[in-house]
């Protein structure tokens, strides 16, 4: 259940950011999570909600945008969306494929009131 430590990292980053600005409250935290990360959005939400109880983030909404796994074939140079974790190039059957996206685990932005 590493989602708890990931939630804790998110809270640390947001707290640091909030200290830089004169913030009254944080309405929303927007995240992007790639399908290739081993992070379960529901578990992350659960971890976040447990940690922010009785803190200034208690009523903050966590919005999670998931990103698909996009590959690019090293041999035929064509791009494709990886479906069902099949990383073999659908155009030329090559197994030499770079991952362009899908590994994201990012805080995109926060919505605040000053």
């Amino acid at each position, binding site marked *: 259940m*590493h989602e708890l430590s*990931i939630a804790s990292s998110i809270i640390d980053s947001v707290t640091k950011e909030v200290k830089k600005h004169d913030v009254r409250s944080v309405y929303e935290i927007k995240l992007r999570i790639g399908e290739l990360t*081993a992070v379960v959005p529901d578990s992350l939400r659960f971890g976040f909600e447990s940690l922010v109880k009785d803190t200034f983030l208690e009523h903050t909404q966590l919005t999670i945008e998931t990103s698909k796994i996009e590959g690019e074939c090293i041999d035929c140079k064509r791009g494709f969306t990886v479906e069902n*974790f099949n*990383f073999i190039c659908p155009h030329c059957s090559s197994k030499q*494929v770079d991952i362009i996206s899908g590994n994201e*685990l990012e805080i995109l*932005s926060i919505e605040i009131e000053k």
Partner: protein
Amino acid sequence: MANILIEKKVLSANDTIASKLRETFQKHKIFVINIVSSPGSGKTSLLEKTVQLLNKNIQTGIIAGDVQTENDAKRIQKAGGKFVQPIETGGSCHLDAAMIEKSIAHFDLDKLDLLIIENVGNLVCPSCYDLGEDMKVVLLSTTEGDDKPLKYPSMFRNSSVMVINKTDLLYYTDFKLDEVRKNALQINGTFEIFETSCKTSDGLNEWINWLTKKVSETG
């Protein structure tokens, strides 16, 4: 209401420490692997065999991570491991870069050629945490399902080497070697694959030869 753009990796604090570790390891010319698997696949057995079979001129440091107890570290020391450090995570399901940073303070890095990090037995959580390693080695055993690469795609995709352990038990299980190879290569077409039995020592020479080659390429 105002929007503040952050665009920052959630684990950037871990990644910063991992990058520093990677620089340190490169400076000292140490080849570093991070071994991951389910509990009970044989990580510690593979390490016992590795310290026994590796040429003694290769100075090997081992960090043995466990949720509780220092049993794994003790086993590896008993098998002949000279530089072994335990990390007891006290409940955490993965090692992180800060734990490794603390642990390597106990090693004389100038002396080391190889550092093996034995992660906590878990095929999910450790895949998110960069430890500054050169590569991840994922281990699975023939008493598990041969569809494991499909069930844990993140870990298998993010690893460079796969070791299939307990091949001596193949006769007793429904595990199919060609099936696991097919599944693993669907996730990761560039996998280097080894088949080993730590009981009979079958296949260990190939593993040791590969490790030795990697160490000499690094040093």
